[in-house]
């Protein structure tokens, strides 16, 4: 199947008073139709910045290179009008914090209707009836009344549903969800994830799920990309990554997840050390200062992403075989 969204060698740098700071390096990804890819990593791993770059939403001091094609449209470095024709219609995004991502003085109906009126040329009445449909689709209770409410009158989960409704308004090919559940409490998280999974299934929409929570990925993604220090360190199918992680970082990440079936008060496993500062990335493999398996070679030479049988890992000493089970 051909890729809906194809990212090649994406690099993002920020010009700061202290010099250039690389945030993302050599990021490539092919997203097939109907596929959900989870992007996992710690804060500062570059996962959000990669997709903000794809959306053309980076801060003013950022510079981008590489290519990101949505169908026939090149997204990187394209002018604002071409970008606006795609954003919201073919490519939509939902953000982390539903409390601040809705315009406070606009009614729900106006916010959902905005992209419909813009991209589809809907009239106000058409937009209203479509907005009602969408609210029902994202399972907002009492949808009729919610239409005329303001964001501050809705709860956090409700607002995230409205955000999803806005994103879905024009039936996008690709939905980028940037930590869609991070700001919500756990029960609501589960509901929103179930909703996203259902929508993806029913509409055959491709989805990118940016998160730091492997549990979220396990539930709904088909493939996983693990990022560290602005680079992809491992990618593969959910099953491969979760069952037999090859990169020590992925393995540590999995080990750090609290397990409900663990007997007694086993201490939480943390990854020692700090995530790297993108200003001063370690030489060689960025993970080597925190890696238990690191050797001198890891500090000297950056490992390349080697791809074999549908999965890739960037490590000199990948863990093969069922060491983790």
């Amino acid at each position, binding site marked *: 199947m051909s890729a809906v969204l194809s990212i090649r060698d994406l690099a993002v740098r920020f010009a700061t008073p202290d010099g250039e700071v690389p945030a993302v390096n050599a990021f490539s990804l092919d997203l097939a139709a109907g596929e959900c890819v989870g992007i996992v990593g710690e804060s500062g791993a570059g996962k959000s910045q990669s997709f903000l770059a794809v*959306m*053309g*939403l980076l801060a*003013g001091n950022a510079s981008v290179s590489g290519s990101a094609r949505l169908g026939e449209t090149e997204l990187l470095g394209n002018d*604002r*009008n071409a*970008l*606006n*024709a*795609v*954003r*919201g*219609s073919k490519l*939509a*995004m939902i*953000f982390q*914090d539903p409390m*601040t*991502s*809705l*315009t*406070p*003085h*606009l009614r729900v109906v106006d916010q959902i209707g*905005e*992209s419909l009126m*813009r*991209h589809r040329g809907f009239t106000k009445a058409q937009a209203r009836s479509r907005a009602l449909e969408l609210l029902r689709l994202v399972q907002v209770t009492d949808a009729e009344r919610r239409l005329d409410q*303001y964001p*501050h*009158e809705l709860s956090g989960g409700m607002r995230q549903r409205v*955000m999803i409704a*806005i*994103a879905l*308004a024009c039936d996008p090919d690709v939905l980028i969800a940037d930590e869609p559940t991070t700001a919500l409490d756990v029960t609501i998280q589960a509901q929103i994830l179930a909703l996203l999974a259902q929508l993806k299934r029913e509409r055959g929409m491709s989805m990118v799920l940016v998160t730091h929570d492997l549990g979220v990925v396990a539930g709904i993604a088909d493939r996983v990309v693990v990022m560290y220090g602005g680079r992809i360190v491992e990618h593969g199918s959910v099953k491969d990554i979760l069952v037999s992680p090859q990169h020590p970082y992925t393995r540590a990440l999995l080990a750090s997840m609290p397990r409900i079936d663990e007997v007694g008060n086993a201490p939480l496993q943390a990854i020692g050390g700090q995530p790297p500062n993108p200003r001063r990335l370690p030489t060689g493999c960025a993970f080597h200062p925190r890696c238990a398996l690191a050797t001198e070679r890891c500090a000297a030479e950056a490992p390349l992403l080697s791809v074999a049988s549908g999965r890739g890992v960037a490590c000199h000493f990948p863990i093969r075989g069922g060491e983790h089970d």
Partner: protein
Amino acid sequence: MTELAQPSARGFWADAWRRLRRNRAAMVSASLIVVISLLAFIGPSFSPHSFDAIDWDHMAVPPGGPNDHWLGTDRLGRDLYVRTLAGVQISLQIGLLATLVSLCIGVAFGATAGYLGGRIDNLMMRFVDILYSLPYIFIVIILSTLFDRGNILVLFLAIGAVGWLTMARIVRGQTLSIKRKEFIEAALASGVGTGSILARHIVPNVIGPVIIYATLTIPQMILFESFLSFLGLGVQEPQASLGSLINEGAQEMESAVWMLLVPAGFLVTLLTCFNFLGDGLRDALDPRER
């Protein structure tokens, strides 16, 4: 007692209105403004006198005399009550219109500069700085020698040219703080164009400070107009504005003090009311910064 900025089902404007209603000084001021405005616009037509008619039998009579000139007459026997109301009318018109003009220009200019940022912002704001540093009083004098003296249009140009500068700065500052908010990013992500972002997502968000500043601009504009008229650069005879009436009154101050006190009383009352109302609005629209 501090009020928490709790989200309520009443909505922002209902909340603001509730807070404003509790502010007695602001409410009294608002009603006084309404009363004076109504008086100024319909009062003269109920009076037997016209603002420029000369009563040869009653020249320079003080208020409360045995005649129907309630607030006395000026040196030429013109009814001071009607003349003052006509003056209030002109002052209010100029104050409101000039504020409206400065509001439109200032908001459009400030929001555009703030949102586009970078070099355009720099250019636009340096232009504002240059206008700020021009000695506007000389410009008014030059303009009034080029055009007919007392041309209201010249007054507008002069007042408008300075009035919008501060508004533009305020709106630019607000825009800068709003444009990096997540909801702007979200709007961008759904493909909203620059114009709509400005008009739908940014300008309505700065409306609070804009209303406050506008209410405080009206008295400034009235004062400025009065000042120009006092200098003889504004409204010309037989038209009257509060400034020109105060000027005339000041010349008779020693023999007929009411000619000064009547228009001055109206001016002071109006200005005080607008300032109180502006203060009240600031508290009502921005409860956290009390």
